[in-house]
């Protein structure tokens, strides 16, 4: 340990650290642009210049290793003056187009301008002009005039994404960020440069110009795109998801997230194909009905089959809570032993960084809960075979477009009853007799268990009919807080969807079995009491980063 002093206070720090790291570990932010904890040190922005006793010149905190007895002053006159100088230099050629810049509100340059600059400019010359709309790749747009040449994006592409296509050309204040000739910024992680960019130089082609950042609420959640479960923020305005961004979790995804996770997972939530209400088949067509009618219809239909004529498919897209309640529902209400779930593994579509071949967020959770055929029951192959042979006549499916699997699609027309939980119209709902409109990952509480056994919470960011943003403790944007009744954004469109565990609780009741769950947290509490792998956990303990549990070879079977 080295004993050092920062601004008059003494700290014991690891001597291998740099000043900026040592300060960060002790909760002191030394202002910086180019430094990033997960990237190599570039030392180019000069924002972190601090005074170090016995050093003749100011030192950059990002590249100066601490030493025993080192005395660092971040607030000395010289350090303050240097920071002000750097801010002034950075701003002279910066467009100052904050009113139309996507980054405004979450811009390091803007924030630091308030904190560390002198507040006015002495620059009266013409600014340097550079290319304004450069498509670096399919998802990232570059405005070179806004670029402060911190090189974070270049280092990310080289060091993390391993696709070294970005570089600077030209010199001095004419430096231009660009891709090497014949290349594009097109890799599975390309969009991470958008958050890394401390200014509005790199923006998302998907998100740009859609919203000021303060008009959106941001909700801590987990990406449902694969078994990694990257921690993320869901950004919502007017009850619509506008973007998803990664959230730091060193145990899972560090600062990163893949482009597919950001874009492909939220599009179905906003989709016009979303179900607006439950539906039942009348005269051959699916018709929107109320929940009471849908539940009554499902109950009466299900009652008309023998237990061994029924089969059930759980879903690795649904939460632990949903699948746990489903497990009880299948066992105690339907009484069938034919239970399984469909694996969605895309062989080869995986890498060493984040992306997993298993495209579902909760298959590990299902294994731990013991979702699978019960003794003497049929597994997925058996269920398909049974439907083909006409032995299985009714199927109950949770949130999974199983008809996307050709072998399953082929047998679905043989069924006499197909009950489906779904949030969206898809191939499977086309075959369904009763469709119970389920809320999406963005509209409910719950937990996923990732492939490493990390149990992580998702939280509702989009409100359904049953929600009130304020009363239900949603994250609130400025608009959410201050919109009046006359404002369009004060009356956003809400869909009539419910979480699967709640739908199942209602249906169990209609079939004569009482499940006493009012919240997903109550379901989780029961899981922790009955499934050994989850023992000792609680929503409070999971917090925002989740908890890793011991993965066992043998899945535990809950005692009912």
């Amino acid at each position: 340990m080295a004993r050092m002093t920062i601004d008059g206070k003494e700290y014991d720090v690891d001597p291998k650290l740099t000043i900026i790291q040592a300060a960060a570990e002790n909760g002191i932010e030394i202002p910086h642009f180019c430094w990033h904890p997960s990237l190599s040190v570039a030392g180019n922005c000069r924002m972190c210049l601090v005074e170090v006793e016995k050093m003749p010149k100011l030192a950059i905190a990002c590249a100066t290793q601490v030493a025993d007895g080192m005395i660092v002053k971040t607030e000395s006159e010289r350090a303050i003056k240097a920071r002000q100088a750097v801010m002034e230099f950075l701003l002279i050629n910066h467009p100052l187009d904050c009113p139309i810049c996507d980054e405004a509100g979450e811009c390091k340059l803007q924030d630091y301008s308030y904190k560390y600059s002198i507040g006015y400019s002495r620059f009266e010359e013409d600014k340097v002009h550079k290319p304004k709309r450069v498509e670096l790749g399919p998802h990232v747009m570059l405005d070179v005039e806004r670029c402060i040449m911190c090189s974070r994006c270049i280092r990310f592409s080289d060091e993390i994404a391993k696709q070294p296509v970005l570089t600077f050309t030209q010199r001095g204040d004419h430096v231009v960020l660009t891709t090497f000739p014949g290349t594009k910024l097109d890799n599975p992680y390309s969009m991470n440069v958008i958050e890394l960019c401390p200014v509005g130089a790199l923006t998302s082609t998907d998100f740009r110009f859609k919203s000021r950042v303060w008009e959106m609420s941001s909700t801590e959640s987990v990406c449902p795109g694969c078994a990694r479960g990257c921690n993320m923020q869901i950004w919502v305005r007017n009850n619509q998801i506008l973007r998803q961004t990664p959230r730091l979790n060193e145990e899972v995804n560090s600062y990163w997230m893949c482009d597919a996770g950001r874009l492909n997972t939220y599009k179905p939530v906003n989709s016009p194909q979303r179900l607006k209400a439950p539906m039942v088949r009348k005269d051959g067509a699916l018709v929107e009905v109320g929940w009471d009618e849908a539940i009554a219809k499902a109950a009466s239909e299900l009652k008309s089959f023998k237990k061994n004529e029924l089969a059930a498919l759980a879903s690795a897209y649904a939460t632990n809570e949903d699948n746990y309640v489903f497990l009880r529902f299948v066992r105690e209400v339907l009484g069938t032993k034919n239970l399984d779930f469909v694996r969605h593994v895309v062989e080869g579509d995986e890498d060493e960084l984040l992306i997993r071949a298993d495209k579902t967020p909760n298959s590990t959770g299902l294994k731990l809960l013991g979702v699978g055929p019960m003794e003497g029951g049929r597994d997925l192959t058996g269920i398909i075979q049974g439907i083909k042979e006409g032995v299985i006549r009714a199927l109950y499916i949770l949130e999974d477009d199983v008809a996307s699997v050709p072998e399953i699609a082929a047998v679905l027309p043989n069924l006499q009853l197909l009950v489906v939980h779904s949030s969206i119209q898809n191939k499977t709902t086309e075959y369904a007799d009763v469709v119970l409109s389920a809320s999406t990952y963005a509209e409910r509480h719950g937990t996923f268990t990732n492939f490493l056994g990390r149990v992580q919470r998702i939280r509702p960011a989009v409100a359904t009919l049953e929600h009130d943003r304020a009363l239900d403790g949603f994250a609130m944007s400025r608009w959410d807080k201050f919109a009046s009744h006359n404002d369009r954004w004060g009356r956003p469109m809400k869909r009539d969807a419910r979480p699967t565990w709640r739908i199942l609780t209602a249906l169990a009741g209609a079939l004569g079995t009482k499940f006493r769950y009012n919240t997903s947290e109550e379901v989780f509490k029961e899981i922790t009491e009955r499934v050994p792998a989850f023992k000792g956990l609680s929503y409070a303990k999971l917090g925002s980063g989740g908890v890793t549990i011991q993965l066992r070879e043998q899945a535990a079977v809950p005692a009912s």
Partner: protein
Amino acid sequence: MERLILPDIKDLHKLDVYEAHGGYSALRKALGMKPEEVTDEVKKSNLRGRGGACFPTGLKWTFMPKQTNKPKYLCVNGDESEPGTFKDRQIFEFNPHLLIEGTIIACYAMGITTAYLYIRGEYGKWIRMMQKAVDDAYAKGYIGKNILGTEFSTELVIHKGAGAYICGEESALMNSIEGERGYPRVKPPFPAQYGLWGCPTTINNVETISNVPIIINRGWEWYSKIGAPKHPGPILVGVSGHVNKPGVYEMPTGVPLLEIIYKYAGGVPGNKAIKAVIPGGSSTPILRGDQLEGVCMDADSMKAAGSAVGTAGLIVMDEDTDLIQVIARISKFYHHESCGQCTPCREGTGWLHKILDRFVAGEGTKEDIDLLMEIANNIEGNTICALGDAAAWPVQSMIRRFRDEFERRVARRTAPVVEAVSA
């Protein structure tokens, strides 16, 4: 004084002529010594770098790790891009084998098996001349495997620069050799620990290395008595600007500037007064013509006068010189050559240049003078490499020593034009 680096011998650039005048005898002598003894000799000679910083060469060599499993490298810096500097070119043209001999001796002293000679790309002719000399030296066994029949082997590769001033900065030079963008590196780590390809590296200027065979041949004691005691040896001074005989002159260190101008360079055309002198290449602080008395071309004297030896590129400006144009042009150079990596230099050099261009156009204001000074102060010392300082010093010194020139420019614009009105 006897000319040691550029002796007056016809066709000395040819290997046989060089050999006939004792060439490569220093190499032979050095190979008979222990490597540490060679380093020691250079250390005791008090040779200081001729690339601008005047750092003790022998001391620099001792920074190289003795025990390492990595290859070690020598980079000989012939990027020579500082305005007013054209001395290394003379060595390439007139005494290339002295440079080669010095390079091989330096390699031997530091246990280096590959040396790079980095020459600025604009020196096409001199690169070809140098390559010819290197090829000849290879053919004669002065470079390559088992030099002069000893166990020692080393390679010498000429690397051509691509036209960026910044590549003369030692760490940018290494990046350039590696094929990377010419960006200076953040130090530490220093080149002796982590240099070219991440291996221990020493970077020496062409003229510095050319002094090495002389030291080995004549001994440190003899050498250290040449010129200024704390900064001894012969030095190539490039004189340009308003002198009758511009050119490169070899002389001992410590010669008074006035002697250089009037004796070596033949004085100022038309016997005009000297308004100002830039003593060591465009980055060194400018000196007033009336403060030159007693100022000599060595590190201590120059420091005392408020400037630096730099690359000993002396630019003389007579009384009719428009110093505002001079400083605007110098600032344009540093604006153009700033690599753009770190903020103060990237943004500040352009700002200085733009303001100074306004002064040239007669549109500067009194406040601009102080602003120029503050911008320069904000660049100085806050950058990754010394280019920021190099851009700041001329501006600072120009304002400090010639503020009246700036003020006159301001006055020219603001003085009301009064015409006589007849009653």
